[in-house]
């Protein structure tokens, strides 16, 4: 019961304290929102880029376009040789008919019909090679370039490396920006609590004189910082939820991967926002209480 009274006392005092210095509290909360919006944007973009990376990794690493009308024994021998290459997990022969069917399917998915105007069309036969690791693409490409059956080789390794470098760049820039905004947020919360401590120094002095324990004196201030972080997090979650529907098609268009904008991802993102808001609020107020409370009264 005493613990419950303590919690109730601390929460009520924190709430009163938050609104007593409303301007300062709202300014600190706004910086929390700014930081969390930046964090959300970074996580969304990184998730999209990661999805793109996985997409590329899961797709064909190397495609070998074959010369026309290869005899079946020669084709079989080629497939056996390709599957024996290091780093190759699978090699699938795509006939010209299968390639045409894929093209028709692609048009159908786009809501269109492939209209050839009655003209006879024949696509190239190819071998689509899956790799255990995209880094084998170069060695596989070199091995195939010596084969007379192969007319042209395309690889996605370049895309993979480019995407990896973009992800690294975005992550670095994002973390640096977040770090700077995070420091600003900490400064704002530390300052908010410092002002709260000084504006209530009379109360604190009386609390000490009448025998209030340190936890009764300190926790309302720590909770006030946590409240600032949590309110900032809730506002950010609402903003992200409202922006989610417009974001989704953009994400699908840019990153080609609907998994990046799944409901599950939104739930994880909300949990991260809440956790970071709560954490930064608690850290800022804890630093401020440690630095200011012992000297305030």
């Amino acid at each position, binding site marked *: 019961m005493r613990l419950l009274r303590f919690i109730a006392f601390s929460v009520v005092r924190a709430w009163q304290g938050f609104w007593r210095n409303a301007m300062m509290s709202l300014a600190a909360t706004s910086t929390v929102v700014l930081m969390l919006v930046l964090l959300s944007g970074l996580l969304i973009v990184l998730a999209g880029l990661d999805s793109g990376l996985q997409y590329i990794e899961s797709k064909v690493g190397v495609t070998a376009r074959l010369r026309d009308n290869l005899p079946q024994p020669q084709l079989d021998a080629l497939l056996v040789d390709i599957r024996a290459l290091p780093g190759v997990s699978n090699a699938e022969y795509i006939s010209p008919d299968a390639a045409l069917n894929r093209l028709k399917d692609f048009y159908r998915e786009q809501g269109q019909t492939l209209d050839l105007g009655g003209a006879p069309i024949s696509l190239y036969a190819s071998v689509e090679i899956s790799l255990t690791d995209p880094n084998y693409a170069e060695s596989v490409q070199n091995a195939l370039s010596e084969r007379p059956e192969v007319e042209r080789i395309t690889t996605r390794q370049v895309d993979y490396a480019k995407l990896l470098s973009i992800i690294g760049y975005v992550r670095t820039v994002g973390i640096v920006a977040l770090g700077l905004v995070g420091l600003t947020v900490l400064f704002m919360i530390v300052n908010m609590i410092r002002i709260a401590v000084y504006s209530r120094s009379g109360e604190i*002095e009386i*609390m000490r*004189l*009448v025998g209030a324990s340190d936890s009764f004196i300190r926790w309302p201030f720590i909770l006030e910082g946590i409240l600032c972080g949590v309110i900032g997090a809730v506002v950010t979650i609402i903003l992200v939820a409202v922006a989610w529907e417009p974001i989704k098609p953009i994400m699908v268009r840019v990153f080609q991967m609907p998994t990046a904008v799944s409901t599950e991802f939104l739930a994880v993102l909300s949990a991260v926002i809440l956790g970071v808001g709560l954490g930064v609020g608690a850290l800022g107020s804890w630093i401020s209480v440690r630095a200011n409370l012992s000297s305030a009264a």
Partner: protein
Amino acid sequence: MTDALRLPYVSVPATVEPVISMVDVGMTYPNGKVALVDVNVSIPEGDFVFLVGPSGAGKSTFIRLLIREQLPTAGRVVVAGRDLSTMRRSQVPALRRRIGIVFQDFRLLPAKTVYENVAFALEVTGATGAEIRKRVPRLLSLVGLHEHDEHLPAQLSGGEQQRTAIARALVHDPAMLIADEPTGNLDPVTSWDLIQLLIQINSMGTTVLMATHNQEIVNAMRRRVLALEHGTLVRDESGAAYEREY
């Protein structure tokens, strides 16, 4: 300190446990200022003691040591059987609930009513709502403010504000009440009213230590007097006047 200044504690019955005991207490601040030198005092439970001396004599330091706002740089301070030098920080709140304290400037919270100011002292120490509702009206009746419980401090006279501060100081049934210049901001008539209240509280068993410059009150009361000068206890005399009479 010379032997001549170590005066007998004539008002202390040998059988009564001291509620305050200072043994060879010295206090020197970090800036080198010497506030107390070799102070030896024993105050028994239920005593009424005046602490007198000019400004800067060490009265405030004496009080700060008793509530463990500061620790002595020499000697021992024992309050209600607890040696304050060896007391852990976490035990200080419990000590302060055994000591009520009032100041010259009242130190009331201006945005809270009389009732809320007194209740606040209970609330911040984890008292239940039922305890608060039971104790606060009783204390306000004791100090004669039961009809002013909804008033803000600014709506009260100086004497009424000091009575509110006394009610707040008594919320935990302290063994001792320390009053630091409680009449300093009050007119003579109000000061006497307040002294009557302190006598009433003392008659209920609470030890009262009152730091004051008010010669008239000390001379009229003829209680035990501790006189400090330049940090030294120059007089400890029962039934005494403000100034030395011999």
